[in-house]
């Protein structure tokens, strides 16, 4: 693997340089206290490093799997036509390890039996520049095995104090650093030592830890735990946890008809399994009638069902759902309770 060094005082120049590979998007202030991936017009506004951020309001999925996406336009006279407007290349700068894992997870989901061209035609136009971070109280990527990433980036920047050691992940990444001229330098012993010191220290920085081992089996045993009813009573079914989750991918597809009653557009928008309508079928039957059922479903899908399909949990431990839940539901606390509480109450003895 090729590794070079980017001194911190050259970071803004490098961001400027990246504009020649596509429109650069990076974390910048959004609202009064938050941060979002947005197009960069002034590199000094990019929030990375010490004055950086931890989690953007929305994760990167917004670029490939748009919150609301018009798929096609239809008309009885002309049939239907694709509504996609060709988008240029983008370079997304400043992506954390958990969010890169999340993209890899979405890539797996959308490349399943039916490859989702709507997703991949945008996905393939995006280059990813990762960056190291320092966890806060809500981060538990370490427990989810996503605190470190070996693929899914074109470049990955690791902070070593006065600069970043830049790992080159793809040939595009190589072009980015090769063409950067003297912005990039070599690295020395002190950089290697600082890199190793930080890597070794990293696990001890996590205040939040959960043990996922055997969780799928325990979740099965706890299928009738009263914890689901308790959470169902708290949850608003507001959908925020699904919207902000970097690995939640569900969508709904609807047709909108124009005033002539004939022509229209087919749209897909982010959906949530917390909505009553999500598992509603013809005749008004609902596979997940109660709020508790729906809350349990999302939790089990994140930590159990996805595991069966893809060999790892869907949750990457970014902490967004816990941070943003208006009902103050603490998802890590949930895992802990289910894993550790040996006095869980169950609502029935019989097999589910």
């Amino acid at each position: 693997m090729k590794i070079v060094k980017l001194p911190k005082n050259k970071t803004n120049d490098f961001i400027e340089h990246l504009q020649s590979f596509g429109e650069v998007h990076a974390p910048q202030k959004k609202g009064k206290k938050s941060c979002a991936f947005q197009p960069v017009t002034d590199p000094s506004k990019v929030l990375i490093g010490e004055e950086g951020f931890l989690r953007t309001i929305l994760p990167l999925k917004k670029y490939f799997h748009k919150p609301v996406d018009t798929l096609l336009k239809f008309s009885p006279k002309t049939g239907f036509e694709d509504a996609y407007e060709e988008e240029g290349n983008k370079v997304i700068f400043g992506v954390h390890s958990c969010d890169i894992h999340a993209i890899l997870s979405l890539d797996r989901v959308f490349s399943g039996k039916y490859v989702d061209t709507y997703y991949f035609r945008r996905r393939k136009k995006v280059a990813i520049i990762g960056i190291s971070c320092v966890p806060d109280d809500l981060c538990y990527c370490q427990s989810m095995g996503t605190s470190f990433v070996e693929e899914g980036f074109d470049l990955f920047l690791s902070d070593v104090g006065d600069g970043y050691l830049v790992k080159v992940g793809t040939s595009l990444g190589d072009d980015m650093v090769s063409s950067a001229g003297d912005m990039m330098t070599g690295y020395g012993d002190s950089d290697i030592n600082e890199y190793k010191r930080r890597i070794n220290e990293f696990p001890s920085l996590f205040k939040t830890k959960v043990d996922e081992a055997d969780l799928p089996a325990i979740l099965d045993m706890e299928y009738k735990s009263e914890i689901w009813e308790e959470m169902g009573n708290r949850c608003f079914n507001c959908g925020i946890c699904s919207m902000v989750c970097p690995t939640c991918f569900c969508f709904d597809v609807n047709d909108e008809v124009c005033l002539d009653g004939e022509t229209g557009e087919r749209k897909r928008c982010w959906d949530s399994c917390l909505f009553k309508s999500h598992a509603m079928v013809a005749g008004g039957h609902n596979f997940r009638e109660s709020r508790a059922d729906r809350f349990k479903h999302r939790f089990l899908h994140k930590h159990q069902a996805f595991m069966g399909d893809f060999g790892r949990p869907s949750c990457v431990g970014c902490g967004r759902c816990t941070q943003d839940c208006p009902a103050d539901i603490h998802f890590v606390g949930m895992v802990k309770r289910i894993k550790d509480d040996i006095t869980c109450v169950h609502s029935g003895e019989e097999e589910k």
Partner: protein
Amino acid sequence: MPKPKVGIFSLTCCEGCQLEILNCEDELLDILGAIDLVSFGMAQSNNLDIDLDIAFVEGTVVQRSEVAILKKIRDRSKLLVAIGACATNGGVAAIDYDKDREELKRIVYGEAGDFIPSITPAALHEHVKVDFALQGCPIEKHQFINAIGYLLHGDLPLLPEYPVCTECKRKENECVLVQHNIPCMGPITSAGCDARCPSHYLGCDGCFGPVDEANVAMEYSIMKEKGMADDEISRMMQVFAAKSPIIKGQFKGD
């Protein structure tokens, strides 16, 4: 196919929803091309009292005469659509529906009030069958236009069945409730407004009415945690939706 005959009617209200329909300036000609607008009090004279395919009705029922007007509209319309918070959930006129009308009339109008035939304010669904509602105070133009498109196609319109929070987050708004402790009804209010108020750092007032299965008890306890007093919370929840089946009875003795 002949154009559907449509009427737009108003009971007691500020008539903001009718105005919002008139505000569809760019689409107005297309709307008039698609439907036969036989009655629209705010915009035209020579309105006809004939059988209708669709009646849009705004406003709260607050007088006996309005009950009769509403029933007549219902009798001659295939579809009756409630438009706006007043028609759907009682709106502002129904906040104090449980108080003694005679006393309220005296407070507001003095002796002149004796001649006002006021009855307990009601949403349309309390007097007639309502086929569906376009919510909001006022309604959203795009929902009205979409609804006409769907109806012309022969379907009932597809309206969001999830709360404002989802629309708010799809726009990547910072949460006013979680991040700024601003009381917000978003978690229990129907989407459809594209998170108008939270997008401007105002808490959602709930004008679209409670979403299906709204978790009112949880909203109540979160608002208390944000420092609101009991009566403030109950008022906030009833400003637009006192007569909604989800809110009605939770704060008053009925």
